[in-house]
């Protein structure tokens, strides 16, 4: 295993997490290098969301550590707020703020967490929304947007804080099939500009296309990790094959 900071933006080492008796993560080791996109695949309940939430310090890990740019962020002495300001997280269910407009959703963190003035934050926010195909929808409330549009606002919101890495938690799973493409397009766009990303996903085609490496998570462990053509096309583990067959059957 490489030393923390050896080119890795994110490094997860021996992380375990249990909710009561239920062990969700049973010792995860994973790193994401600068400009790299790593796809996390695995059945529902395999621990993908929990791992992302642990990295963003929304859950406390039981054992092991997470490093961000070589710094141990899971150290109890570290201020979680400062860490979250360096990361972006996009949720499966968007979790937009329903009482705020699209633009206000995007600029809230910039203004309150990063201390950027309203004028500058709004200018950047408008540019970001336009970039993700939401020009003209700045003043709409989330209620008035389609699921795909909401998720793109959520991506803009996570990206607005200039994160070191983006964590995407099954960002297309709550969408109608015809809306999946526009959200994946936004992620592709971010990958194109070199965003470092950890992407939990059920979209195997997308993982193959965008991810530099794919990690197969099974019952709280990473069973297989490698380039997409290897993990998705010629998996070494029986579990991975079974999972891919099930996914394809759907």
């Amino acid at each position, binding site marked *: 295993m490489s030393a923390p900071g050896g080119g890795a933006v994110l490094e997860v080492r021996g992380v375990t997490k249990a909710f009561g008796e239920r062990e969700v993560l049973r010792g995860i080791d994973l790193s994401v290098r600068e400009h790299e996109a790593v796809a996390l695949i695995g059945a529902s309940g395999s621990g993908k969301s929990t791992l992302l939430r642990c990295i963003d310090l929304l859950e406390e890990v039981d054992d092991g550590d997470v490093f961000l740019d070589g710094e141990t962020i899971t150290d109890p002495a570290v201020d979680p707020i400062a860490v*979250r300001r360096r990361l972006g997280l996009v949720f499966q269910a968007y979790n*937009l703020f329903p009482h705020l407009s699209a633009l206000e959703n995007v600029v*809230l963190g910039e203004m309150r967490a990063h201390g950027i003035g309203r004028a500058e934050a709004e200018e950047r926010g408008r540019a970001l929304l336009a970039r993700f195909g939401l020009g003209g929808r700045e003043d709409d409330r989330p209620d008035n947007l389609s699921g795909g549009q909401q998720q793109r606002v959520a991506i803009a919101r996570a990206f607005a804080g200039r994160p070191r890495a983006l964590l995407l938690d099954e960002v297309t799973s709550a969408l109608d099939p015809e809306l999946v493409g526009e959200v994946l397009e936004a992620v592709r766009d971010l990958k194109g500009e070199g965003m470092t990303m950890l992407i939990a996903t059920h979209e195997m085609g997308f993982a193959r296309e965008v991810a530099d490496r794919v990690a197969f998570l099974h019952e709280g462990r990473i069973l297989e990790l490698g380039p997409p053509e290897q993990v998705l096309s010629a998996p070494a583990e029986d579990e991975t094959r079974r999972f891919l067959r099930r996914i394809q059957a759907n």
Partner: protein
Amino acid sequence: MPSERRLEREAAKRRRRRRGQAIAALSSVVILGGLATLILTSPGWPEVRETFFNWEVFKESFPDVAKAFWLDVKIFLVAEVAILAVGLLVALVRIARSAALFPLRLLAVVFVDLFRGIPTILLVFLIGFGVPALQLSNTPNDPIVLGAFALVLSYSAYVAEVYRAGINSVHRGQRDAALAVGLTEGQAMRHVILPQAIRRVAPPLLNDFVALQKDVALISILGPLEAFREAQIIESLTFNFTPLVAAALLYLAVTVPTARIVDRMGGPEGAVR
């Protein structure tokens, strides 16, 4: 050109509507008319009309009762603002998870249990007569202030629980999202959770204010000349209850509009149709 089928349906719909209106009108006449007949033909009605609905007494007493009612209005306006603030503070303290706030949290629980558990009239009495009896310097002895204080304590306990229910009803994902964009717990509460919670609990909050607007009359037991007390005084001089009816109308003049606002906020289900 609409099809014949459609015309048929529309005609049927119109028939149903007309039938509904006819039934509503008929049952209103029967029930309300019946009640009116029952009251108007009762043996005591002429006397009741004289003692409760005397137009001369009404005209005579209304200006004084209305003037006294102005005190009620002032008390509940001030009390409402104080209740909104105190209730929110108590709710936030109860919800806070910080270990340092443990003693305050305990106090907040006791506050709610205590002031929600004591009958409001008893609380007005205890504070109105108890606080002056302590003979502390610096404490107000004005019964209006003490009475309003008692109402604030009682209603803040209710309102704190309304706020708390509202805050707890905001989905956990909202807090997660607020933290994920880098907000502190306090900022998440202020900018994300509270605005949603308050919107949700606005109707029950207003509902509590309808109750408060009437309960201001309880302060009369401490002596201030508010509408109910003024009406009672005139009643004892004239042996006629009409001033109390005048006071009732004044209370209705503020509670009914508030209730209609509550209905509006709750959607069309509450409105009279």
